[in-house]
């Protein structure tokens, strides 16, 4: 059984954008990159996976469960950060994590301190989140995602808006999770980011999945993820013309 199984997913918005007939399987332990430009359908895919929006067609299985049918079972071992970090601005980082903790019976109070340490927010854990910088908010979002020690992480552009150090820190956290054997789906519009973190990549453009490939193989064949992406896009443009 695949950890994630997306089958013929279609979701079209009123403006015609969205995703069309997208199918993808992610196996346990893979760090899967979803690479595509802004508006290509990455966030839509992740929102459907996490039950935030409903697909027009197709189905999602996470650990064999459909989030649309049984959110409680499907999301039991999933942590996600979709679109932008969600948190309560009038609460402190610690209080935000306490809210999340209440939803996971196995989560201990000690894990809050541990996760705050891990994302580098220990020093300002008692400050209200509304006072945080963009990078700190992103870290808080990550902390809230990682608190329950999920088996599957769904991260939508997790380094979005971060400075160089922040991006390196987030990459470090993701690598650490990968070392623990966690399955990770990460979206990005930065080919370099996917190249540095992922074992596999899926290229998505205009709502259509163009290709999936192992990162080491495409590095051998094309030299970089960026070259691979550009080759694919150019081939597609030639075919269309």
């Amino acid at each position, binding site marked *: 059984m695949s950890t994630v199984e997306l089958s013929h997913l279609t979701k079209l918005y009123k403006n015609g954008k969205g995703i069309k007939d997208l199918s993808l399987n992610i196996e346990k332990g893979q760090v899967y990159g979803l690479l595509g430009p802004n508006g290509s359908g990455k966030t839509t895919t992740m*929102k459907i996976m*996490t*039950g*935030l*929006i*409903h697909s027009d067609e197709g189905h999602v299985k996470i650990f064999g469960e459909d989030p649309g049918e049984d*959110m*409680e*079972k*499907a*999301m*039991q071992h*999933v942590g*996600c950060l*979709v*679109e*932008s970090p*969600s*948190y*309560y*601005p*009038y*609460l402190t980082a610690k*209080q*935000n994590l*306490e*809210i*999340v903790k*209440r*939803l*996971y*019976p196995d989560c201990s109070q000690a894990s809050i301190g541990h996760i705050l340490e891990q994302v580098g927010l220990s020093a300002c854990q008692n400050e209200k989140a509304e006072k945080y910088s963009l990078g700190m908010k992103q870290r808080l979002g990550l902390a*809230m995602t990682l608190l329950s020690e999920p088996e599957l992480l769904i991260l939508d552009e997790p380094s979005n808006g971060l400075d160089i150090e922040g991006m390196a820190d987030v990459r470090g956290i993701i690598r650490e999770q990968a070392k623990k054997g966690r399955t990770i789906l990460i979206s990005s519009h930065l080919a370099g980011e996917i190249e540095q973190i992922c074992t596999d990549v899926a290229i998505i453009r205009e709502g259509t999945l163009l290709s999936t490939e192992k990162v080491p193989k495409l590095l051998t064949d094309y030299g970089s993820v960026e070259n691979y992406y550009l080759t694919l896009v150019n081939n597609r443009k030639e075919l269309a013309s």
Partner: protein
Amino acid sequence: MNGMKSIMGLVSCENQKIFRQRKYQVYLAVVALIVIGGAALSMIPGNILSFTMVNYPYTVLSMLGYVFAPLAIFMLSSDFLSGEMASNEIKVLLTRPVARHKVLLAKIISIAGYIGIILVGGFLVSSILSIALTGFSSFSILTALIAYVVGFFPLLTFIAMSAMIASLSKSGTSCFSFCLFAYLGSMVLGLVFSTLSPALFTSYLGMGNMVIGSVIPVSRLLMGFAILTGYGLTFLSVSGLKFVSRDF
């Protein structure tokens, strides 16, 4: 988590959010001060509001039922339902292993809990003040208690109505405005077209005071419960359907 446990977990999350906001702490304090201020005002002979300490708990119940509780319900629904949906804070809960209908139910329970605190506080403060100033003879504690319990029921329908409006609204401000409009509109409609009044749920806001007299209008009371239940279930169904099917 099993059903009940996950709802309780969500309710405790909502309660923590409500009571961490200074606005809602201050609101409780302001309501308490107004109840105490009303008692102080009653000590002034011929005061402009004609407040007296005779039956003061019932006066307070009317104040809470018609003004302070509905206002709190509208504020809470705007902040914790439509406001969270508009600001995406709702994703904190919706991306967790909890069913959407439980998230909505937990929010409704928490709002009801806050309103319960206002009513319990109002009952205790007004009763103590009334007894302290006029003795036990001015009202019956048991009757007042029953009046407050009965008076809570129409507010539950109000919570369901505001949850429905919140599920349909695009922002906290629009939710608050629509709730206020629905409330005042229904009140005005009841006043202008008196024949419509028995069918409007706002006409039963003062239901708690029906139990005060020596003869309790049982049939009117039962009709009130039936109408409020009907409205409440309709509002709940619409809010549930909309909330569960909404894309975030």
